Each structure stands twice: as C-alpha cells, then as structure tokens.
C-alpha cells in the first residue's frame, strides 16, 4: 500500500537514524529551529516567522510584540475571559477553560471574527477615507447561508462606546509610533473622521486589525493570531477564579418573562455539586 503524505511549506524534519518517528532536526521555513533559532530568535520573531514565512524586521517584531501585550489580557469583564472564568470557577479542565475563551472570543462582537472582517475592510478600502466613510454608512446585511451571524456594528468600533477609551488610544498611539506600515498611522490621523462616519468610537479590534494588516497578515491569519494572543488573560483569570471559588463569583438574578408558576423570583448561588 502506498504511504500517504502530509505536505508542508512550513516544516521540515529529518528522522533520527534509529527511529523514524523521532526528528533529529526541525527546520521552520528553512531555519534550524533547535540548532539555531533557539537562543538567537525571540518568541515574537519566531511567531512572525511561523505565519509569514520570513524573519521580521525590527519594526515588525516590535509591532507584533506591542500588539501581543495589548491583546494578552482584556481583563475579567471581557466576554471571552468571563467564559474561561466560568470554567475555572466550576473546576473544569484547563483545556475547556481555554476552549470556552476561544469560542466566545471568536465572535463578531469584540472577537476574532470582528478582526477578520475589519482586516477585509483594510484590504478593500486601504487608506482611502472616502471608501471608509461610504462603507461605514452602509447597513450590514445578513447572509443566511453563513454560520456566522450578521455583524451588528461596523467592525473595529465599539457598539456601546461613548468615546475612544484611553487604553485604545494608548495602544493606537504606541503601535502607530513604531512606524511599521501605513494603516496604523493613517488610522491614528483619521480616527475622528472614521468615528464620525461609523457613529461609534474606535475599539481594540479595530486597532488590532490595522496592526495585523500592517504586519502583512491575511484576514485568516489575523483571526488566528487574535484568538490565541488573548488566551493568556483567559488562562490566568480562569485559574484565579478557581482559587477564589464559586461563592465569590457572580451568579446573577433572573427575571423569567414566561414563568408558568411564578412562586419564586429569587436566585441564589447553586450548590457546588448540582
């Protein structure tokens, strides 16, 4: 029987002479991972290499590192981190906590899908203000054939924001200041006009999309990066809530709108073994 193969443009291995199932060398996009990258490349440089296939320039590495810090922990109020904490507080497996964060953080409202859509916008609109202003006024349409729900706000903007928040401004200012690509600089300089067209303030996914576009990532790559760059915060907050325990974690009240027997409207924390 012919042996089937896995094709890869990224990874090359040579087997140990005495074990076909153990690699003696691993090359990533042509670079010797354990023989040369280890000890010479930073984590961020290696991350860039994995996705782009080339080593980053100093500016690219600095931008990716800055973005990674900006995204690493959205904090416990973020829906994806909240989901991870729901895993942690109940004593769920670590992987399920991160799976929960990925599932929620994948969405088109503040998550990786929003970044994907915003990156598509960057691809089609570039730094053309008129294109952005025209497109931001167009009503978003549903595609019933898609598993993704229709976005309810323009990608990259905060649906409930009053004005651009300080962390978003700080991130934009810092990342644009690195001077890697044009999108971030243009976004910084035209933010107010874009916000006026959207009727909403810029949000972190909008900054992330511009940064990822400047780094040369495709929307698919940007979506993947956004998913896992936010996992560190989900992980530590899940572990933290596991330590605090369920009695210190909100369970919230309930208003049942179609209660067949409204004898109780209370909601008390459930027991740990329910």
């Amino acid at each position, binding site marked *: 029987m012919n042996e089937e193969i896995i094709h890869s443009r990224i990874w090359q291995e040579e087997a140990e002479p005495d074990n076909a199932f153990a690699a003696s060398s691993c090359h990533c996009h042509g670079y010797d991972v354990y023989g040369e990258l280890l000890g010479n490349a930073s984590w961020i440089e290696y991350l860039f290499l994995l996705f782009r296939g080339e*080593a980053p320039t100093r500016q690219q590495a600095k931008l990716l590192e800055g973005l990674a810090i900006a995204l690493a922990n959205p904090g416990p109020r973020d829906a994806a981190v909240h989901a991870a904490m729901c895993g942690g507080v109940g004593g769920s497996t670590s992987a399920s906590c991160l799976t929960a964060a990925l599932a929620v953080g994948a969405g088109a409202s503040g998550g990786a899908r929003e970044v994907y859509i915003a990156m598509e916008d960057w691809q089609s609109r570039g730094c053309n203000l008129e294109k952005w202003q025209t497109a931001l006024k167009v009503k978003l349409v549903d595609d*019933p054939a898609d598993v993704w729900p229709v976005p309810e706000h323009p990608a990259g903007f905060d649906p409930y924001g009053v004005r651009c928040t300080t962390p978003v401004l700080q991130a934009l200012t810092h990342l644009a200041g690195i001077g890697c690509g044009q999108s971030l600089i243009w976004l910084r300089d035209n933010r107010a006009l874009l916000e006026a067209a959207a009727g909403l303030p810029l949000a972190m996914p909008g900054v992330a999309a511009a940064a990822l576009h400047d780094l040369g990532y495709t929307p698919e790559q940007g979506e993947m990066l956004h998913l896992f760059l936010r996992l560190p915060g989900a992980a530590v907050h899940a572990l933290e809530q596991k330590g605090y325990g369920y009695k210190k974690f909100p369970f919230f009240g309930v208003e049942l709108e179609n209660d067949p027997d409204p004898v109780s409207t209370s*909601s008390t924390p459930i027991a740990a073994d329910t």
Partner: protein
Amino acid sequence: MSGPELLEKQVGILRTSAGAFFPGERAVFRGCNLHTTLKDLEWFELYVFGITGRRFTPQQVKVLHALWTYTSYPDARLWNNRVAALAGSARSTGTLGISAALAVSEAKIYGWAAARRASEFLFRAKAKVDEGAKLEEVVRAELKQRRGIGGYGRPIVSGDERIAPLMVLVREQGLEKGLFLNLAFEIEQILITQGWRMRMNHAAISAALAADFGMSSQEYYFFGFPAFLAGVPPCFQEAAEKPEGLLFPLPCRMLLYEGVARRSWHGANIAN
C-alpha cells in the same frame, strides 16, 4: 437608549423566556415546568422543542431522528471523528475530545457550514420558483455565482449512501410529498441531466425535510448539531483502549517539505 445606559439596564440580571433554574424548587424550560409539564418528553423531543418552541408529529420525529442515526459513522479516519480519536490516543479527556470533534464538524466542505448553505439555497430557490423563475435557471445562476450548490456533490466520493434508506423511512412515514423534498430531488435531476455530475448529499435531503417540517435554516442548523455525535465516542474509546499514541502514528518520512531551502537566521531581516 444606547451606549452605556443600555448596558446599565442589564447589569446583574438575566431577562429571559428561554428558561431558568430555581435552586431546590424547579426548572422552567421555554415557559413549561420541566419536571411536570415536560416530564414525559423523550430527550430528542425536548431538544427540538427547545430549538423551535414547537412540537413535531411522531412521524416527523422518527424521520428527524433518522437524520442523526444515519450519519453517525464511528470511523476514526473522518476528520471530525479523528479529532476525538486523537484526543483518546493522546490521553485527553472524553469530553474535550468529543466536544472538539463536534466543533470541528462546523466545516465548509461537510457538516454544518455546508448544511447551512444547503438549507439557505433551498429556501432561496423555492422563493424564486414561487415568483415564477424556472428552477433550471436558478440552479445555473447559483453555479455561475458560487461555483457549487450547497447540499450537492461530496468530498472524496460522489454518491451518498444515506439517501436511499432515508427515503424508505420517509415513505413509510408518509412524508415523501413535501415541497422542499421534491424541490431537492428536482435540483439533483437538473444537475445530473445537465452534466454537472453532482448528486444530492445528506445536507440537502436533511435540509429539505427539516424545511418541510417547518424549521427555518437557523433551527435546522441547531437541530443538526448532534448528528455526528453517536459515531464519535466509539472512536475516542477505541483509541483510548489501545496503548497511548498508536493512532495514526506519523513517521518523519510522511512529511513532504515543499518550502524554501535551508538558510541561516544570522542573515535574516531582524539583524538589519
């Protein structure tokens, strides 16, 4: 009301008609007491009631159930099943492996993204035919625009072994006259006779039956979600029963590198 004001109104409270759990007292499921009003429902009936808020006839339930049964294949080579099996082989937990397999089943060339497209096309095609368009023109336009039709054709093989036994059951239950079901077969005939060589697959026939039973595309999507489930645990279990790491071991020679030639990091951009 908008912005933070709108958010403020929702702080700390769940307003819902889906249901609620009152600890130590009762549970309400879509406006019904789960332990009294709904206590005699089969789990499957509860599942579709939860999705649609409606009840289905025994004949419809039988067919809907078969849509799941007939597509539960415990073959660990299948990509979604393989996820669970690899989890078993790698000594992960059953829940992680099985839930990841179901998540992976939301795929474009099979599974729930494909099923969603099939359902949406059937609804759109029927609407156009109802408006007076010829079905052949609708099919041709779809192929021209999207280079494929959701629910027709299949990766790896062209035929679908699930359709014949399913249609036997559908006829037994007297449900073969549905408008969407007939439309689905008419589309297949057009694709075959016009030389496109795409036969109907499980996504189209199940989407058609669900539509005939009154499910929207969205309801069908949620209904279908567990369809592969029964085939998944056996894949995990068998892999977990074997010695660790024995499922699909990959020797280095099976990796075919097609990328750039070897080079030195010291000459890379980062040094500039």
